[in-house]
């Protein structure tokens, strides 16, 4: 305010004091308004266990490994196990794969899991006891995941398993060179330490009786019965099934496979058993599979590692006859529909034993007479909340219709725990709404520096086949940090300040702690903030005019 103003009207042609342009509210020009959005990262979307991967990578980027681990533990009590054996749908979905290579999410998860075991981190039970008691049948990944979540929700949990050690297929199905047993033990112990009552060598035979003692039951008996095939065989042919071979090994029974082993089947179990045979001294391990490699259900990495270890593959082949020391193979061809058809051409192959790896079945004896329960094709039908037709009896893992992996099983355990918790409280579990997917085209990738993925060191094939030592080593802190920082933070703000910087009108307010706000008094709606957001976390919406 000038002196002149205070003393009455301004004289003609006097110089005015400088005014600020802040008086000019340019926000009135706007026809579109930027808004910060949260989109669903493709990794989170793909994770069968429902992990918030992007969030735990963010903690890892800041070297806050404990917070990162706790974020994983919210959804999955087995980071060290899954960091080794998960088939990584997250990495398949990762947007960075389009830019250079997918982020090594799995390797970071393993680092965090191992770090937690090393540091002895534990999780608390914050909920007050509910007084409800839940029975979990089966101490595999699904059952233990459910037990863990239920215990953290304040319920009393008893897990019963017919085996003498807990872990299910994590122990009895996956060979030690992929998953060392001390890792399984450590992560299971952490669940037991929450107060979960684990009863081993304790098969459940009467569910009706159990239901009188418990408020709810979660069934997770898995699929431990090897599928048999009728192969014409001589009296002295040695035919085993893969599940028994792998489980027997865990119980200390060295299976007598001989020097030449034929494995029948093309799944992951076939690879596991062929590679195990090599380690047990087989000079020749042959996988016989009726279709071609690209149609094999086994994951590519397993096939690759098996080949590295000298496992041979016979594609387009079926076993027509087995006898002592040799088998007869019939060659197949794929018809127009991709189905294998016999050709009538036969060939002999030396084999001391045949191991059948043709898939697994569930032993559903326990539920087959339970009222309301429907069994179709050897799996138990469940609703979206994983409850069977019998009220209070839930089921998950390999015994319900789904993809049979440990990660899916862990996801089932969590989901069942939420459903059981809601059911015990007389409500239903409302799954939070899913955000829109953060697709690659929304990213502005110029801002991300080029950074190839970190490779985990692996044992040389020659050394692998002589031991059951773990093949793949972990990352150390610096490489895990680098790998985590390769995350593009798709669809969610990563606090890069680009919006704050690129606004020509200073209309983005930086509030700190990763929060920004648009100053609508001055935002002209040019859209630069949205266009230059690396992670696609800003969207322009039309103004209502």
């Amino acid at each position: 305010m000038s002196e002149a103003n205070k003393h009455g009207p301004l004289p003609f042609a006097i110089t005015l004091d400088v005014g600020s342009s802040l008086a000019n509210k340019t926000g009135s020009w706007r026809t579109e308004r930027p808004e910060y959005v949260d989109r669903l990262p493709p990794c989170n979307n793909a994770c069968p266990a429902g992990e918030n991967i992007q969030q735990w990578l963010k903690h890892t980027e800041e070297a806050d490994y404990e917070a990162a681990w706790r974020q994983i533990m919210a959804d999955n009590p087995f980071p060290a196990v899954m960091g080794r054996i998960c088939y990584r749908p997250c990495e398949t979905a990762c947007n960075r794969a389009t830019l250079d290579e997918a982020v090594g999410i799995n390797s970071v998860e393993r680092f965090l899991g191992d770090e937690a075991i090393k540091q002895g981190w534990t999780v608390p039970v914050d909920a007050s006891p509910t007084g409800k008691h839940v029975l979990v049948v089966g101490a595999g990944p699904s059952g233990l995941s459910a037990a863990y979540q239920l215990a953290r929700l304040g319920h009393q949990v008893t897990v019963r398993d017919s085996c003498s050690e807990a872990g299910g297929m994590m122990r009895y199905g996956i060979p030690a060179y992929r998953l060392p047993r001390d890792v399984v033990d450590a992560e299971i112990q952490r669940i037991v330490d929450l107060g979960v009552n684990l009863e081993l060598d304790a098969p459940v035979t009467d569910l009706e009786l159990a239901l009188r003692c418990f408020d709810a039951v979660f069934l997770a008996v898995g699929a431990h019965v090897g599928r048999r095939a009728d192969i014409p065989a001589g009296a002295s042919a040695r035919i085993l099934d893969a599940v028994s071979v792998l489980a027997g090994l865990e119980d200390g029974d060295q299976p007598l496979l001989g020097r030449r082993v034929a494995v029948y089947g093309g799944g992951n179990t076939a690879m596991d058993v062929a590679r195990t045979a090599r380690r047990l001294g087989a000079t020749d391990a042959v996988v016989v599979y009726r279709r071609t490699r690209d149609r094999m259900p086994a994951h590519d990495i397993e096939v690759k590692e098996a080949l590295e270890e000298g496992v041979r593959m016979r594609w387009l082949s079926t076993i027509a006859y087995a006898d002592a020391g040799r088998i007869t193979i019939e060659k197949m061809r794929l018809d127009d529909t991709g189905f294998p058809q016999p050709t009538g051409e036969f060939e002999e192959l030396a084999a001391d034993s045949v191991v059948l790896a043709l898939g697994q079945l569930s032993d559903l004896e326990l539920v087959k007479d339970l009222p309301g329960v429907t069994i179709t094709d050897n799996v138990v039908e469940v609703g979206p909340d994983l409850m069977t037709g019998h009220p209070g009896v839930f089921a998950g893992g390999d015994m319900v219709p789904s993809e049979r992996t440990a990660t899916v099983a862990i996801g089932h355990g969590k989901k069942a725990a939420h459903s059981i918790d809601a059911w015990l409280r007389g409500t239903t579990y409302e799954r939070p709404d899913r955000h829109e997917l953060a697709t690659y085209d929304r990213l502005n990738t110029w801002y991300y520096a080029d950074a190839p993925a970190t490779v985990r060191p692996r044992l040389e094939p020659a050394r692998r086949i002589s031991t059951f030592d773990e093949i793949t080593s972990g990352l150390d802190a610096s490489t895990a940090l680098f790998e985590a920082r390769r995350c593009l933070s798709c669809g969610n703000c990563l606090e890069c300040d680009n919006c704050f910087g690129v606004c020509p009108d200073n209309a983005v307010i930086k509030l700190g702690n990763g929060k920004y706000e648009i100053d609508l008094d001055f935002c002209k709606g040019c859209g630069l903030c949205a266009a230059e957001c690396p992670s696609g976390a800003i969207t322009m919406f039309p103004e209502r005019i």
Partner: protein
Amino acid sequence: MGQQRIRFYQTGSFAVGNRLLDPDQRSVQSDTRRTNSLNSGHRACQGCGEALGARYVLDAVMRATGNQMVAVNATGCLEVFSTPYPESSWQMPWLHSLFGNAPAVATGVAAALKAKGRTDVRVVGQGGDGGTVDIGLACLSGMFERNDDVLYICYDNGGYMNTGVQRSGATPHGAATTTTPAVGPAPGNDFGKGKNLPLIAMAHRIPYVATATVADLRDLEYKAKRAMEFRGARYLHVLVPCPLGWRTASNETIRVARLATETGIFPVFEAEDGDVVDVTKIRKRRPVADYLETQGRYAHLFGDHPREDVIARIQAEADRNVRVFGLVDSAVSDGRG
């Protein structure tokens, strides 16, 4: 390499800020205490590259000088949209005289400060490409020749945009303006005309000359800071896309500046005492058509009757830049496939 190289941090060193960086490694623009030399409420168009570039540069100079800075402005968009009497968006001492005399006025301010013994206060002159390469060139050349202690910044948007998009000496070849319309056998601005002011400045052998764009803030801030480490005449040429004159969407300002560098159309380099000392390499080289087709001022080169011949001439100019300035690392494939 003069520029500070930052270790790999998620988005590398290219984003404005980064929560994982030490505060002293972050850009001036990521700091909430930045000057905001050009305040909100200015009347520049939506997505104005010049408004953005001016704030980027001046905030960096304010930081480098400890806020001891005076700016002298030529006539042009920057003056008109920032200072309609009696309002002003400038948050530092700022002076406007005429279209053509900003370098001379800046010289005068520097001389006055020197006479008062205030050598701690630094002077910048600034203007658009019209005021710099055409109307103010004589005053600027004199300032360079006398090696007056002024940093002169040209915000180059390739034309007289404020008065309605007329051609300037910095308008690129083939671009349509209201005075070089897209008609006839040789549509748009004539080839073989125009001035390259960074090279003219280098020919004066002044201590420091640099080019930059609004697409690479870290590089731009480095150059503004580096310029203030010298005494004498310095020249900074900043490419600032103009949504109005280039006929681009308002949200494409930074993208199109990035394309100008990634195609080799606009070489980014710095020179000391007349010699190039550093060049910003192209990360992923693109054909010039990628740059041209996003802009309405080149629309006549595409569409139903594309002018491949004209595009080829512009590509040849970009190729020459790549060759002369060494814009592509020989180890990196040029990706034009």
